[in-house]
Structure formats: C-alpha cells, structure tokens
C-alpha cells in the first residue's frame, strides 16, 4: 500500500463515508504492512507493529493526525520479527508471533526491552506462526500458521496455555482438509463462549481464492475439525478475501476487512455470542 495509515470509522459508517480520524505521517512512526491492530479498553490504548523498523508502537486511544506513539519497544534486545500481535490487558502482556517462536513483552515496556518469555523449540511445533490471539480469562493462547508459496504444508491453529514458556507442546492442533485451513490471517477469541474466530484467505498468490472463509472453532477442537460456524466468500456475503477480523460482542457483530475489496464489512451474527 502506497500510503500507510490507520483510519478510524464510526461503527455505523457505510459506503464511502470518510473516517472520523486518521493516524499517519512521520511523527506517527507508522509503516505499511501493519497486519494487526489491537485496542485495549482497560487502558484506552491501541497497538500496532511497524515491521520495517521492527518496533511495537503503543498509541493513546484517541490518537489522531501525526501524533506520536506513547511507547515504542525497539532495539537490539527486542527482536520482534513478526508483524502481528495481541495484548493481554489483565496480565499486562504483549504477544508477538515470529515464525518459530512467540515472544512476550510487558505491556508497559518502552525502549530496548527483551521479551520476558519465549515459546520456542521443537516440541512447540511452531513453524509459520504469524498470527495469534490471547484469552486472559481462560488462559488460552491461539496461534495461526501462514502458508507461503513455497510451503508444502497447509496452515493450522495451535492452542497453547497463556503462560506457556520454552519448549512446550501445544494443547491442541486444528489442521487438515476438513478444517479448510490453508493459512490463517488475523484472529480473535471470544472468552465467554471459548471461541476462536479466524480469517482464512486462501493461498497468498491467488487474487481471488475459491475457498476463503471466516471460520469459528472452539477451544476444545483438536485435529482435522471443520469450523463450527463459517462465513463463506460469495455473492451473498460479498466477501472475496477476508483478511482481518474483530468482534463487537455488545452489538453481536463480526467486523471483517477484505483485502480484495479494500473494504470493511460488518455482519450481524447473534448466534455465536
């Protein structure tokens, strides 16, 4: 994308309605390829990764214009690697996936701060970990695998304990043809119902993959398990390549971003909440 930005739209925005505010410019320290964003209601902050400067940026909730982040985690000890993250506001931790490992940082860290723990090692089975979501209530960490053009294996969802560290085995792995998972992009969890909500945009090099969908699994799923619920691409949903997902439980809505449409779609899905 030629112009990096974070745009904030009203929940009820529709059509070509302009954003209420945008964050951009040199002062913001943003870059392109911000493939995750997490809002922390408890502390009224939001978080993104700048993968080009290998930095975790924390902004105050109402940030607008060319305002700078309030905290930056960056430096030789940081080694973030990935471009996605999630935040646990209760235990004050930031989780960042990086292929073969998951690094965990203090939420309030600023500057050149080493991770406080790392999930890493052959027993973890981590190979293409590029997205995750943390549940601080049920103490669950769900990790999504990507699939590059050269990868033989399809993606997967791996379930760990939130406090896992070192060379630990995952509690469960959802993978296989019935799961429909080729690769996982952004994810969300819904602690009250123990749900995993993940976008499955299909193969990277396919502009309009025939099998993309939003899938909803449970924490108890293990093995080659189809999703419990599925929002498919197609003419009815208008989805073509779902990339991002976030839940709005208050209004029983699932909000999706679609790469091929360059758009944001909100679905009423009361049955999952």
């Amino acid at each position, binding site marked *: *994308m*030629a*112009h*990096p*930005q*974070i*745009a*904030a739209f*009203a929940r009820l*925005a*529709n*059509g*070509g309605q302009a*954003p209420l505010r945008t964050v*951009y*410019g*040199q002062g913001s*320290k943003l*870059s*392109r*390829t*911000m493939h995750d*964003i997490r*809002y922390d209601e408890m502390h009224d902050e*939001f978080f*993104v990764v*700048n993968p*080009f400067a*290998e930095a975790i940026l924390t902004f105050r909730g109402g940030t607008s214009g060319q305002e700078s982040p309030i905290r930056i985690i*960056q*430096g*030789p000890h940081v080694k973030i690697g990935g471009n996605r993250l999630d935040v646990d506001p209760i235990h004050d931790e930031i989780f960042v996936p990086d292929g073969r490992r998951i690094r965990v940082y203090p939420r309030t860290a600023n500057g050149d701060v080493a991770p406080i723990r790392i999930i890493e090692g052959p027993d973890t089975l981590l190979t293409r970990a590029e997205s995750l979501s943390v549940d601080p209530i049920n103490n669950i960490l769900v990790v999504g695998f990507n699939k590059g053009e050269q990868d033989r294996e399809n993606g997967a969802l791996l379930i760990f304990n939130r406090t896992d560290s070192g060379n630990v085995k995952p509690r469960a792995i959802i993978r296989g043809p019935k799961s429909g998972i080729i690769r996982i*992009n*952004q994810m969300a969890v819904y602690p009250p119902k123990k749900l995993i909500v993940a976008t499955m945009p299909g193969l990277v090099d396919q*502009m309009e993959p025939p099998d993309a969908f939003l899938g909803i699994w449970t924490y*108890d799923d*293990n*093995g*080659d*398990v*189809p999703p419990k*619920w599925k*929002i498919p691409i197609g003419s*009815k*949903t208008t989805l073509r390549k779902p*990339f*991002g997902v*976030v*839940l*709005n439980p*208050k209004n029983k809505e699932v*909000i999706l*971003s679609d*790469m091929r449409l*360059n*758009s*944001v*779609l909100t*679905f009423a899905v009361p*049955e999952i909440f």
Partner: protein
Amino acid sequence: MNKTLRLVLAGLLVWLAYGILMQAQADRKPVVIERAPLRFIKDPNPSFSAVAVDSESNMLVVSDENMFRIMEYDRRENTPPQARLSEPKRIISGTNTKAEMICGVYIDPKTKEIYALNGDTQNWMPVFSTDARGNVAPNRALNIPGHPFQLAADEDQQLLYMTIQSDNQISVYRKQASGGEKPVRTIRGNDTRLEDPHGLALDLKNRLIFVSNFGNGNVRGTGGRYGTFAPPSITIYPMEGSGNIKPVHIIQGPKTLMNWPAHMAFHQERQELFVANDADNSILVFHASDEGDVAPIRVVKGPKTGIKSPPGIALDSKLGELYVANMGTPSITVFPVTANGDVAPSRTIRGGPAGTVGLMIGNPGAVGYDTKREQILVPN
C-alpha cells in the same frame, strides 16, 4: 470388582468418550452463515498511487490501488468542473493481469509498453502492450521478491532500477528480464543508509541514483538484526554502485520539510529533483547538488493546488509539466515544472466527483474495534 478392574474400566470409558468427541468434531457440519453484511465501508472511487506520462503519444498512465486497475488517459485531459469524472481510454484489470497493488508505473518511450510494479500481494512486475485492455495476461512478467515501490529506467543501458522496501535495497534488472531472472546488481547493507526506501529517480547525465527513505531502518550485526527510526532522507548513489556502499551525499533534516517522501522525478536539463511529499500534501523541489539540511528551492502546497496525500509524481520534461497522483482525493493534478507555492493546477484529471475524500484503505490486513469510542480501526 477389584480396584484394578475399576481403573481399567474407567480408563476405557474416558478413552471411548474422547473418541466419540473427536469423531463428533471431525464429522460435524459447519453452520454456514450466508447473509449480506449490515454495513460495507468501501471507497467507490479510484485511489491513484502512481503516474507516468509520455508526451509523444499523449499517454498518461495511472495506477488505482483501490480497485486494482491500470488506467490510461489522454495526457491533455482536463475534467470539466461540472463533470463527475473523466473516463479513461482503457483499463487493464483482473485476475489474469498479475497486477493488483500497483504502486509504480513506467511507459517505454519506444514501444509504449506499460511496466507495472506490484508493491504488495503479488510479487510481479507485469509488462503490457499498447493494445492490452481488460483482464488480459501481460506480455511478460518479472518475479520481484519483497515490496518494491518505484522504478526508473536507464534506456541507454537497458536497465531498470527499483527500490525494495522490505530489504532496504535497490535492485537493478535487465529491462527485458522476465520470470525468475535475478537482478544484475543490488545496493544493500548497513552503510547504504537505505531506510524503508520509496522513491527512485535517475540523473542520467551525472550517473546518480536518488532514493527517498521514510526512515524505518534496521541494522544487521553479528547479534542479529534490529530496528531503528531515522528522520526521512534522500540518499544518493552512483548508478554503477553495488553492494554495501555509502551514499555519495544525503539530504536530511528539518529544513528539508520531508514527511514521508514518496515517488521522485528528475529533470535533467534543470538539474532539479521533484519529490512527492505524501504526509505534507506537498511537492518539494531540490537542486541536484543539494546536500545536508537544506530547504527545498520550491514547494507546491496549499488549498488551491488540490494536492492531497500524493505518493506519485511524473515529469514531462519536453512540455515542462509535472503530474501529481493524489490518493487523498481521486485526481491527477498537472502543474508547470516552475510552479511554486499555493497555485492552482493547470489541469486536473478526476477519477471521481470534485472534492471527494479518498478513504485510502489499502490491503487492510487487520481490523480493530475501539469499544470506548465505538470506532472501527483499519490499518493499511
């Protein structure tokens, strides 16, 4: 029943229950939710990110990152104020084109082929002939790993130069390269001071490469790699440079007014460097020999200019015109190369209604929700 038998039976029951649960999971049929979205945020207009001009053929080629299109206009087009938009002469778009997030375009001065650089999502630079339109396969395509941003050509040497953002690199390819052909040389390494390179322009007389950098850097050392932030800059290298070379000089500092310097264009006769200054809604002009913390010699900026979030720029040196691609509003604005200050464009080619605000959503890899303000957060 003895204790051992009870334990065996209990284990068997647990095993059976687990087996039934696993089978039930594997056999379950997903509930398919097929319904229309309640709301659908979508920019109905193009988002112009790059522009190229050829006055000999009156070709004006622009890329639209919103609807993944390459569009050709007549360069003399000037959308009347009462018109909704100007229709392009042709559009190249679709899943056969290998063109998606196009952030750089180039017109071959002899063949009039269009070179289109995917900045994201597709690792290809497709090349299209003059009769290509619609959902057509390119004549040829070069695989380019990473995230390129702008390309420029040395026609005498038949070489293409391009910036690669993700590797902090300049890659030089044979102009006719295709498939998996590797670059003939690269400029890359800690000494280069390449920090999220974006724009690239060539001074063919003095054999120099100008590169604009956003300042998102990283340092490679024995302990691994780590990120840095630096002020934006323009770094200058010899055109025949290769490897981990130092820039011959650097333009950098607060007087330069750079704020996300994007595409650049070089005017050979005037020895001037034009910079699309994205986050400042301006065009900056520097002398070729400028270095250090210098003020631009001219700045095109202000409400009369119509310039808004401009990543793209092109020069027509023969006719003395400057073309600006605006993402913040769906337009190409045209100025004389001598324009300075808050001046109205000599022509405006609109892809949407006048005054429209561009949403600039591009490859939205994620979405967030601000529960306090009830706002949807969309990063590019």
